[in-house]
C-alpha cells in the first residue's frame, strides 16, 4: 500500500484560493512537491509547518495586492480598534460559561447553515466545475420538445459533432454501465460503476494517472486488446494497492481486459465513475454497455423511436445512447457554439426529418447538460428555502444568545455607566459590545467552518455505506470560498443580533436617564417588550422545531427501520432487471422461473419466491375503498407477489387462502390482505368475500375495478409498539397476485435458514451468470441492506 503524506487541508485550500487570486497557477502543485520533498527529507511536522507558512505568505500577498499603494492600512475596515477586540476577548474569558454556551450554539447553527450552503452550491448545476478551465467544459445534448425530456444521442451523432463542430474541442462521449470486476480467479467480484468513455475525456479533465497510462486513441482500434483504467478506490480495495497492477489481466463480466492505468484519488470524471473502458465509435456498444441503465448521465431519454430508426441515416447509428462532452475553444462563446450546433442539426434534420422533428440541440454547461430537467425559478426558490431555514435557525440561536448578552450587560451596568461618565458616546459603547459579539461569533464561525469539511466527508461515507453511489466528482468534501464568505455574513448577522440589539437596549436607558439617578440604582436594566417578544418567539420556535423533529424521526423510522415478523437475516434478496436494449423481452418470466428452480436446488435453500416488492422495502401507497357502503377510503401499501410468497416468508394464513396458479391468470381479480387491513378498514369484521378497489395513488388510473378478498394473512411487519409509534399504527397491506406475464424489474427472495453465508457465492452467481450471458436479464444487489461484500454483487440478506 503506498502512503503519500498529505499537506494540511485548510492551508492547501487557502493556497488554491490565493493562487487563483495571484494568477500563479503552478503555486499549489509546486508547494505540494516541495512539501513531499520536505516530508521525505525532514520530518512531516516540519513540512506541514512550512506548508502553513506558505499559505499565510500567499494570503499576505493577496491582501497586499488588494490594498491601494501608498495608503496606510486601516486597523479595521469598519473603524473598530484593536482595543475593542482585546476587550471582546477579555469578556469571553471572564464569562466562560456564557462563552461556552454561546460559542457551541452559534458554531452549531453556522455549521448547519454553511454545510447546507456548501451542499446546495455544489449540487447546483450552474456552479463552477472543478476542472482546469471548468467554466468552458460543456455538454451537448438533444432535447425532445414534445416529451420535455432529453432525447437519445447516438454514436453517429458523436461522430458527426466531432467532425462538424469547430467551436468545441475535445469532443467525446460516455455511457454509464455497471460491470462486475473480478481481480483474479479467487475474487468474488462486485459491481462497479464504469464509464465507457472516449479517451479524450482524460485530457478534458486535465488529469494524469497515478500509475501507467490513461485510455489512448490506439485503444479504439478494432484489433486493439481490451484495456481498462481503474480508479484509486478500486485499486486500494480490490487490488490491495498493488503497485504492479498495471499489466494485470482482470475479468469484466465475462470478458478479460488488461489494466493499463490507475487514476489518482478523487478522480471520478465524467460523473462518479471508478472504472474506464474505451468507447469505440465504429462498432456497436461492448457487451457491458448493453446494460446501460437509465441513470443520470447515461443519456437515456424517453425517446426510443430514435433507437429503432438507427439505420435511417448514418448519424443515427450506434447501440445505446451516450452523453457528450467537449470544451469551448479559446475565445468562443457558448452562443456561437450553439449556432454551429443548430446549423449541423438543420442538416441532420434534412436527412432524418422524423427523428429530429421535435428535437433541438443544446450546448450547456457540463453539469446542466446532465440534468434531465431545466432549472426553473420554482426549483431555485425551493433550493434557497433551505438556506432561509438555516438563516432563521441561526437568528433564533442568536436571539437566545442576545438574551444572555443582555443579562451580561445588566451585570456590567456599572462599567457602562463609568464609560459614559468618562465621555464614551452611546455609539462608542454599542460598537464595543458589537465587537465583543463579533469576536464570539468569529470563534464560533471558525469552529463551525472547521466542522463543515469533516461533516461533508461523514455524509459522503454514510451515503456510500447505505448503498448509494459515490457523489459526483464535482462534489468535494471541503470548504469552498463562497461558503466561507457566506459563513462570514452569517457571523456578522449573528453578531448584530447578539451584540447590537442588547447593546442598544442596555445603553438606551443609561443615555436617557440622568446619570446620577441611574448610578444610584434606579432598579437596574429591566426586561422590556423586545425581550418578551424574544422569549415568546423562542418558545414558539422550540415547539415547532421539536414537533418537526419528532415527525422527521417518525418518518425516518418508518422508512428505514421497520421490524420484521420473520427472521429477515435468513433471507437473500435479488433484483433482476431487464436488459435496457431488450426491454420487451417476452421470455423474462420464463427465465426468472428457471432461476427460481436453479436457486431452489441449491443446498441450504428451503424456499424461493418472486415478487415485485419484498417485505421491509418501499411499496407503492394506494388509496382503497371497501364495498361496505360507507364510502370511506384509506391509504394502504400494495405488493404484487408470487404464489409461494406467503409460504416462503412464513406469513400464516389467518382466514381464507393464499394465491393459487389460477390467480395469476388475466381476469382473476383477487387480493389477500393482512391483519392490519382488516383491523383498520373493516373494524375486525370478516374480510373474506368483501370487495375492494383502488381509488387513487400508485401507478394506475383511478378508480380501479373491484377485487375480491380471498385471504387474510399475518402481517410481515412488526406490531410491536414503540416509543415512536405515537401517531401512526402499522401500515396495512394489500397483496395482489403477480401476473404470469409480468415483466421486470422483479425480485427474488430465497429462504436460507442457516443464514446467507451458508450459500456459496458462486452457487448464487452461477444461475445469474448463465442467464446474463444469454443477454436478457441482469442482476443487482438488494437495495435493502447488502452485506459488506455481497457475493458477486447479486445478492444480500434482506
Amino acid at each position: 500500500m503506498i502512503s503519500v503524506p498529505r499537506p494540511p487541508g485548510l492551508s492547501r485550500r487557502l493556497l488554491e484560493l490565493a493562487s487563483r487570486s495571484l494568477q500563479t497557477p503552478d503555486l499549489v502543485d509546486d508547494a505540494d512537491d516541495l512539501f513531499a520533498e520536505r516530508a521525505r527529507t525532514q520530518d512531516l511536522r516540519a513540512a506541514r509547518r512550512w506548508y502553513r507558512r506558505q499559505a499565510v505568505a500567499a494570503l499576505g500577498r493577496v491582501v497586499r495586492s488588494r490594498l491601494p499603494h501608498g495608503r496606510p492600512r486601516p486597523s479595521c475596515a469598519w473603524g473598530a480598534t484593536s482595543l475593542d477586540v482585546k476587550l471582546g476577548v477579555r469578556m469571553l474569558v471572564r464569562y466562560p460559561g456564557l462563552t461556552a454556551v454561546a460559542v457551541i450554539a452559534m458554531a452549531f447553527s453556522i455549521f448547519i447553515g454553511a454545510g447546507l450552503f456548501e451542499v446546495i452550491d455544489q449540487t447546483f448545476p450552474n456552479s463552477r466545475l472543478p476542472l482546469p478551465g471548468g467554466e468552458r467544459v460543456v455538454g451537448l445534448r438533444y432535447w425532445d420538445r414534445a416529451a420535455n425530456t432529453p432525447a437519445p444521442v447516438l454514436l453517429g451523432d458523436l461522430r458527426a459533432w466531432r467532425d462538424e463542430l469547430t467551436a468545441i474541442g475535445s469532443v467525446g462521449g460516455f455511457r454509464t454501465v455497471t460491470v462486475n470486476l473480478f481481480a483474479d480467479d479467487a475474487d468474488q467480484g462486485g459491481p462497479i460503476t464504469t464509464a465507457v468513455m472516449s479517451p479524450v475525456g482524460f485530457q478534458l479533465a486535465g488529469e494524469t494517472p497515478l500509475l501507467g497510462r490513461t485510455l489512448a486513441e490506439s485503444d479504439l482500434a478494432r484489433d486493439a486488446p481490451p484495456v481498462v483504467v481503474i480508479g484509486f478506490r478500486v485499486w486500494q480495495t480490490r487490488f490491495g494497492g498493488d503497485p504492479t497492477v498495471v499489466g494485470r489481466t482482470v475479468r469484466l463480466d465475462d470478458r478479460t481486459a488488461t489494466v493499463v492505468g490507475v487514476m489518482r484519488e478523487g478522480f471520478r470524471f465524467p460523473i462518479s465513475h471508478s472504472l474506464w473502458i474505451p468507447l469505440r465509435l465504429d462498432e456497436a456498444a461492448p457487451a457491458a454497455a448493453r446494460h446501460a441503465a437509465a441513470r443520470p448521465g447515461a443519456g437515456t431519454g424517453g425517446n426510443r423511436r430514435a433507437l429503432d430508426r438507427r439505420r435511417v441515416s448514418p448519424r443515427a447509428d450506434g447501440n445505446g445512447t451516450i452523453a457528450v462532452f467537449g470544451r469551448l475553444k479559446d475565445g468562443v462563446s457558448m452562443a456561437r457554439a450553439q449556432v454551429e450546433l443548430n446549423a449541423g442539426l438543420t442538416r441532420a434534420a434534412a436527412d432524418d426529418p422524423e427523428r429530429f422533428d421535435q428535437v433541438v440541440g443544446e450546448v450547456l454547461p457540463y453539469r446542466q447538460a446532465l440534468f434531465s430537467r431545466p432549472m426553473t425559478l420554482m426549483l431555485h426558490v425551493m433550493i434557497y428555502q433551505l438556506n432561509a431555514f438555516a438563516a432563521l435557525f441561526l437568528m433564533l440561536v442568536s436571539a437566545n444568545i442576545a438574551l444572555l448578552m443582555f443579562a451580561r450587560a445588566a451585570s456590567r451596568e456599572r462599567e457602562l455607566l463609568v464609560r459614559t461618565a468618562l465621555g464614551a458616546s452611546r455609539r462608542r459603547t454599542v460598537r464595543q459590545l458589537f465587537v465583543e459579539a463579533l469576536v464570539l461569533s468569529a470563534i464560533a464561525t471558525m469552529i463551525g467552518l472547521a466542522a463543515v469539511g469533516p461533516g461533508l466527508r461523514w455524509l459522503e461515507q454514510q451515503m456510500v455505506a447505505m448503498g448509494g453511489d459515490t457523489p459526483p466528482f464535482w462534489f468535494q468534501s471541503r470548504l469552498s470560498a463562497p461558503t466561507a464568505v457566506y459563513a462570514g455574513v452569517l457571523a456578522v448577522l449573528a453578531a448584530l443580533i447578539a451584540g447590537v440589539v442588547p447593546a442598544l437596549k442596555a445603553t438606551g436607558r443609561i443615555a436617557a436617564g440622568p446619570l446620577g439617578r441611574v448610578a444610584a440604582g434606579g432598579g437596574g436594566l429591566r426586561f422590556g417588550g423586545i425581550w418578551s417578544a424574544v422569549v415568546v418567539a423562542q418558545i414558539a420556535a422550540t415547539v415547532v422545531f421539536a414537533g418537526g423533529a419528532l415527525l422527521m424521526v417518525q418518518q425516518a423510522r418508518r422508512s428505514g427501520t421497520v421490524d420484521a415478523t420473520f427472521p429477515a437475516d435468513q433471507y437473500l434478496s435479488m433484483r433482476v432487471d431487464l436488459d435496457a436494449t431488450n426491454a420487451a423481452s417476452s421470455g423474462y418470466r420464463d427465465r426468472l422461473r428457471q432461476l427460481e428452480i436453479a436457486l431452489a436446488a441449491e443446498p441450504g435453500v428451503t424456499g424461493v419466491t418472486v415478487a415485485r416488492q419484498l417485505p421491509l422495502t418501499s411499496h407503492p401507497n394506494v388509496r382503497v375503498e371497501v364495498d361496505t357502503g360507507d364510502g370511506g377510503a384509506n391509504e394502504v401499501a400494495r405488493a404484487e407477489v408470487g404464489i409461494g410468497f406467503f409460504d416462503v416468508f412464513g406469513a400464516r394464513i389467518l382466514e381464507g387462502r393464499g394465491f393459487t396458479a389460477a390467480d395469476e391468470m388475466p381476469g382473476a381479480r383477487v387480493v389477500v390482505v393482512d391483519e392490519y387491513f382488516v383491523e383498520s378498514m373493516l373494524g375486525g369484521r370478516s374480510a373474506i368475500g368483501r370487495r375492494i378497489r383502488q381509488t387513487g395513488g400508485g401507478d394506475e388510473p383511478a378508480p380501479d375495478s373491484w377485487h375480491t378478498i380471498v385471504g387474510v394473512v399475518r402481517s410481515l411487519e412488526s406490531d410491536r409498539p414503540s416509543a415512536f409509534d405515537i401517531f401512526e399504527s402499522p401500515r396495512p397491506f394489500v397483496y395482489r397476485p403477480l401476473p404470469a406475464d409480468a415483466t421486470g424489474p422483479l425480485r427474488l427472495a430465497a429462504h436460507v435458514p442457516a443464514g446467507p453465508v451458508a450459500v456459496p457465492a458462486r452457487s448464487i452467481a452461477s444461475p445469474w451468470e448463465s442467464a446474463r450471458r444469454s443477454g436478457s436479464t441482469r442482476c443487482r444487489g438488494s437495495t435493502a441492506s447488502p452485506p459488506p461484500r455481497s457475493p458477486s454483487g447479486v445478492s444480500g440478506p434482506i
Partner: protein
Amino acid sequence: MTPPATLGELEALVLAAVVRVGDGANGAAVYREIQQRTGRDPSLPAVHVTLRRLEEKGLLQSEGGTTSPRGGRPRRFYRATRNGVHAIQAFHDMWRSVWRGLRWPDAESRK
C-alpha cells in the same frame, strides 16, 4: 537599444536562479536554487509572483512542460529572454561598481 530594466533584490535573485537552473526552471526549482544559494527561505508565493511579474516585464518567457512524477497539471518552465539576461547583467555590474573600492567605516577606524 532600450536600457536594461531595473530589478529589485528578489527579482534579481529569481532571474539569476532561472538562468542557473537552465532547463527545468519551474517555480519549485527556482525556489530550491535560491534557498541553496542564499541560505534564505523565501516564500514560495513570493517566488511565483515574482516569476509572473518578470514574465510580464518581458524578462522571462514561459512554456507549458511535462507533469511532475507526482502527477498534477503540467507545469510552466521559464527561461530568461534577451532582455532578462541584459537586466541581470546590468544588476550585477551595478553592484560590482558599488562594491569596487568601497572601504568600510569600521575597517577604517581599526587602522
